[in-house]
């Protein structure tokens, strides 16, 4: 500890106003820096996983399955894999960041400042969207070399990429708020996110499913994300992209309302 040094003006004991924008921006920066600092694990590894899926399933099934007339299975699979990567990583980012902060105890650094529920929500969700899109873009950039795509309706691609990432970022936020331990979060992942992703048409067109699973797909919001996203590539889909967009938007609003309510009340964050 230094002896008292000459100080021009030590703290003026009045609270300083501070700007809400700076608060939001800082939390967004911190959340983005968090995954960026371990990007080998948070970005590179999931890209590799996506590519492995394509190599294995694409190679095995290219000659046997033709989900849409005139579309190779590998070409069909790429949008599914890209979207699956976006969804899983957007979810992983917000949920794991929050649960780590809870378990490490450093969540207190976010609970003491005057951050609003909306700032908290916006920063966590936006950072998770960034990670989801970074991984999705990576998977796309690598896999596209294996099965060049003839993109039919490109405007839909960013729309669904963004909506899918945003929705799963919010679901991840909720999972992070609700979970108190890593195994609870793992349950969310294993029993909700992975089944919903696998049953949403990543690997197949739901038209090929038995009737029960076909109906089940229709109540799974993930199905609409992937179906709409795939429409951007082939201009063909199981349902209209407009309808998908509606379902995805409504789902996003519903989970966002839930997450914001939890944050406002401090549910499981403040005792």
């Amino acid at each position, binding site marked *: 500890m230094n002896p008292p040094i000459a100080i021009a003006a030590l703290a003026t004991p009045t*609270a300083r106003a501070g700007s809400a924008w700076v608060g939001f*921006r800082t939390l967004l920066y911190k959340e983005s820096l968090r995954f960026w600092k371990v990007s080998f694990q948070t970005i590179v590894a999931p890209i590799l996983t996506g590519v492995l899926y394509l190599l294995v399933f694409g190679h095995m099934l290219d000659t046997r399955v033709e989900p849409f007339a005139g579309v190779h299975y590998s070409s069909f699979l790429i949008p599914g894999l890209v979207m699956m990567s976006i969804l899983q990583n957007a979810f992983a980012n917000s949920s794991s960041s929050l649960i780590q902060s809870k378990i490490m105890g450093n969540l207190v650094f976010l*609970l*003491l400042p005057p951050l609003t529920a909306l700032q908290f929500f916006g920063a966590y969700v936006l950072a998770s969207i960034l990670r989801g899109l970074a991984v999705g873009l990576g998977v796309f950039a690598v896999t596209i070399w294996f099965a060049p795509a003839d993109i039919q309706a490109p405007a839909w691609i960013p729309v669904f990429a963004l909506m899918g990432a945003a929705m799963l970022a919010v679901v991840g936020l909720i999972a992070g708020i609700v979970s108190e331990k890593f195994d609870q979060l793992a349950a969310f992942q294993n029993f909700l996110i992975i089944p919903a992703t696998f049953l949403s048409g990543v690997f197949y067109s739901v038209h090929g499913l038995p009737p029960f699973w076909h109906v089940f797909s229709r109540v799974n919001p993930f199905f609409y994300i992937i179906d709409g996203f795939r429409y951007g590539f082939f201009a063909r889909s199981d349902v209209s992209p407009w309808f998908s967009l509606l379902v995805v938007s409504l789902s996003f609003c519903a989970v966002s309302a839930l997450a914001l309510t939890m944050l406002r009340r401090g549910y499981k964050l403040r005792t």
Partner: protein
Amino acid sequence: MSIAAIEVSALTKRYAQVTALDAVDLSIKQGEFFGLLGPNGAGKTTLISIIAGLAHATSGRVKVMGHDVVNDYRSARRSLGVVPQELVFDPFFTVREMLRIQSGYFGLARNEAWIDEVMQNLDLADKAEVNMRALSGGMKRRVLVAQALVHRPPVIVLDEPTAGVDVELRQGLWQFMRRLNRDGHTIVLTTHYLEEAQQMCGRIAMLKAGRVLALEPTHDLLRRISGVLVALRLRGGLPPALREQVIEEDPEHVVLRLPHPREVGAALEACRSFGSEVEELEVGPADLEDVFLQLMAETPERSGP
């Protein structure tokens, strides 16, 4: 009269079966150095958590610098810097990153000059670029203090800040806190080291089982309750009349608590007339620990809820 730094009114906090705080009233004036004492489970940390917005009150209100911690939480939190009891840190960042980020959460960009100054004062300057993970416990504690000060809050709350901290840091920390207090900051601390509270705090609240048992200036508390302590070594035994005053006894010594210094002479006289010779005598003020033990013993434990 100016606004209280912290105003706690009829504050109650119940967890499922436990009443952690029971209708606590407390007003801490601006510029005070205030101590919050009590045994483990007395409700100190719960009280601080509610002041800081980390916990919700079951009923009652709290204001920081006149701002309600619920309805006007943003202004209340801006006015408050809290050093948490747990040694928490974020392993992803360096000390400087941590402080910049914390400053940003309070809406303050370009706060570098103040961050440097806080680091300098807490002897953290040469650790600025070191990752939090690589710091010792004492250093992590300093960063926690720095984080609490990064937005220059008028009210600073330290929850057991010197638990498990080496002597050097403890001294340095108190020196820094005294200076912040001189500059007009209100400082509230909880501590287990009663000696520390006695030295530092102008006023003290003693909590037990969620209630305030005493709330007084430190010197009043010491004077009112404890009087003086007289340690004696006697040859010939203690006169029965003084038995009641004994607070400590071993074969060699006996310690008496007398309500007032003027009674020391009478006590010695009683020994003489009893035929005992005083071989050793030490007279001193009772310290906070005696007050504390006396208060805690006087108030019967409440039975369960």
